[in-house]
């Protein structure tokens, strides 16, 4: 699946997008954040406060306990500040 990062999450991770293949044990958004966190310092920094991070699956907002099975694109970003 494709991951996208925006704003300071993008800056901290150090890239705007990447393609990953998480193991089957990674079922939810929360699981995915935990799995990403142990991939290196940049990820650990980006996701150090997981409660602040917002996520979208296939362009719709989702909650931390949403199951990621079937997702084509998952995005992580800080709370929105548009408008």
């Amino acid at each position, binding site marked *: 699946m494709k991951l996208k990062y925006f704003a300071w999450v993008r800056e901290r991770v150090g890239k705007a997008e990447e393609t990953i293949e998480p193991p089957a044990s990674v079922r939810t958004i929360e699981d995915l954040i935990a799995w990403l966190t142990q991939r290196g310092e940049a990820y650990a920094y980006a996701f150090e406060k997981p409660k602040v991070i917002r996520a979208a699956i296939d362009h719709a907002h989702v909650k931390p306990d949403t199951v990621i099975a079937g997702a084509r694109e998952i995005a992580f970003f800080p709370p*929105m500040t*548009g*408008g």
Partner: protein
Amino acid sequence: MTSVTIRIQESDFDIAREIALLAEGRTDIGAVVSFSGICRGSDGDGVSALTLEHYPDMAEAEIRRHVDEAIARWPLNGVTVVHRVGRLTPGQNIVLVLTASAHRQAAFQAAEFLMDYLKTSAPFWKQEENASGSNWVEAQAQDDAAAARWTKS
């Protein structure tokens, strides 16, 4: 029929032109409310510019969802949302919301509803430049509270 226009663009918008497009050839509109959000320059240590980042594939879909909800809630003749992205300096326009209805309360309420949701749900992020560098604008609890008041209880 409710005419809907949603655009995300780097260039400025012209309110008079957007209203004319919305109202053209119709005589069922009694009220048009416009909201323009403008880049301020006078906060604290002086913002010299804002840069707006967005999630292109999601932004228009997310705005569309809220426009559809506004149309379901209020009798609207038309809705226009234009959100700018890129680097903006103080005094420049950021966002435009236009609502048209036969009745003024519907137009006012729908415009406020849409602005509250744009602030908290549309995938846009503001980075501020000031004398000491740049930083990402933090989301404000008061914006979440403003959006929450529209939730049906």
